């Protein structure tokens, strides 16, 4: 039967687009024939602002890129600048950094799980996810005083040392979290309707996934055993025992399971880091430019000057953020401000593959597949 094609606009304000994204769908009844993604509704010009701020002042802006996992963003940026200026970071600072990074990975995946299940129509998992997220945020608030936009990393170290009683609280959280993950799995993993919605939906095989630039858990769901923490080890990851979580099925369900496994793996890392936290400085004592002030109020002030000028050069650094490969391309011209900051955001590149996944499926499948690639619009549009 000849039928007219229906043009459907989803978004930019739509409950299932995780923010302000717009799908232009060409539909044949309920079947998607073509999908065009329109974005830029949250384009805030972060890269241009990077050229207008000093190296230190840009750190709060990295928080607001991928606001669900601000700490890895912070880290990727300071890592780039540290590589550029060749700064050694003290061991304790690296341990604290890895601790915060992995905690943030758990937070990110909790929100991922919740919003995915919410998109599928069940409302309970998101509440449970946010219940545990709140506990993790309380830990963060103890550590750096903010809930989402931490601005905790500093070039050459971290802003503040661990507060008293942080490690015991962290251990409580880990213990609690392990129990809760069992709850989630009972609620979601075996649920027949959930499997029906997720299995064999949004299939993309390994070669295609690489070609479409997918990274992170989304790529590992397609069976590519790859993790930047393993391939190009940075920070203290070489000393830590963990494994990259890989699933072979290439569908939405595999991508979901990879993230659930990663949560457990992160808990494992957290426990190791908490047990072996060394003593020492939290920020580098390398001198840059001016001598440290004596009797300065905070550690950051004592060791690191406000005016920081790395040598001329350029660097591209990649890190494994919870959503995938997060890279910062920083060009310095020897002044106090970066000449150019380019952010290679994981969400932007993962989103490229979405139309490929969902052509020929239905709107509910679009939502399921879209949920499993786990994007954040702040990261896509920057």
């Amino acid at each position, binding site marked *: 039967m000849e039928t007219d094609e229906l043009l459907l*606009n989803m978004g930019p304000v739509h409950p299932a687009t995780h923010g302000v994204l717009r799908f232009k769908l060409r539909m044949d009844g309920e079947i998607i024939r073509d999908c065009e993604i329109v*974005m*830029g509704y949250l*384009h805030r*010009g972060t*890269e*241009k602002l990077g*050229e207008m701020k000093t190296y230190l002042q840009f750190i709060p802006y990295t928080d607001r890129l991928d606001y669900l996992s601000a700490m890895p963003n912070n880290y990727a940026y300071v890592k780039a600048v540290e*590589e*550029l200026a060749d700064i050694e970071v003290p061991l304790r600072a690296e341990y604290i950094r890895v601790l915060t990074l992995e905690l943030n990975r758990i937070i990110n995946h909790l929100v991922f799980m919740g919003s995915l299940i919410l998109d599928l129509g069940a409302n309970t998992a998101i509440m449970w996810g946010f219940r545990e997220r709140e506990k993790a945020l309380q830990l963060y608030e103890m550590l750096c005083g903010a809930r989402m936009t931490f601005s905790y990393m500093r070039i050459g170290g971290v802003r503040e040392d661990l507060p008293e009683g942080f490690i015991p609280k962290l251990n409580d959280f880990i213990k609690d979290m392990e129990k809760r993950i069992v709850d989630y799995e009972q609620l979601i993993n075996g649920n027949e309707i959930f499997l029906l919605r997720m299995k064999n939906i949004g299939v993309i095989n390994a*070669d*295609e996934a*690489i*070609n*479409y*630039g997918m*990274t992170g858990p989304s790529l590992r769901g397609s069976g*590519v055993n*790859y993790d930047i923490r393993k*391939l*190009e080890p940075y920070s203290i990851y070489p000393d830590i025992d963990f494994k990259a979580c890989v699933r072979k099925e290439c569908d939405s369900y595999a991508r979901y399971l990879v993230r659930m496994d990663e949560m457990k793996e992160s808990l494992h890392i957290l426990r190791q880091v908490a047990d072996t936290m060394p003593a020492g400085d939290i920020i580098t004592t390398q001198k840059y430019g001016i001598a440290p002030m004596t009797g300065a109020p905070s550690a950051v002030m004592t060791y690191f000057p406000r005016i920081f000028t790395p040598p001329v*050069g*350029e*660097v*591209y650094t*990649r890190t494994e953020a919870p959503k995938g*490969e997060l*890279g910062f*391309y920083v*060009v310095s011209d020897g002044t106090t401000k970066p*000449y*150019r900051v*380019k952010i*290679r955001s994981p969400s*932007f*590149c993962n*989103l*490229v*593959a979405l139309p*490929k996944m969902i052509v020929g499926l239905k709107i509910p499948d679009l939502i399921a597949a879209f949920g499993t690639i786990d994007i954040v619009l702040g990261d896509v*549009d*920057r």
Partner: protein
Amino acid sequence: MNAAEELKQAMPAAVVSTGMLIDKPLAIIKKEEILKAAGKVKEMGFDNLSVITGIDYRDRFEVIYNFFSYKKKENLVLKVVLDHEAPSVDSVASIWKVADWLERETYDLVGIKFTGHPNLVRILLPDGWNGHPLRKDYDMETEQFVTMGEDGEDIVSTDGSNLLRRR
């Protein structure tokens, strides 16, 4: 021998010079040869194109390609130098699908034309936006406003009178 020198051996005509970008092999490619060089790079096993970006150096543009190989676990950076007047370079979107969006983004924000790109339109800013923001000579003073047309498309103008509220 690193990947950049390997590339230079394979295609001596295309590679201008090689070097290092901190710890990553860097090869500067002639503008005309980028498509061929990219094909060669893909053959060499660099299956992941991490990032394409353009930088405005006031007198020239540089386009930078970052590659990574999942098999060999190696990095490679390619660089193309363009003149400042009408920067354009061949598109590699036919080889890597992800290049499609990355090139659109570079076109949008830096204003480099990628010839042979299937759909080179703005991606982050609305169509009709005046100027490319990441150029150093971008005019930050004039404010541009976006209003909505009949079918929901964006109309850019410097006049925000029908959008802004009188207060």
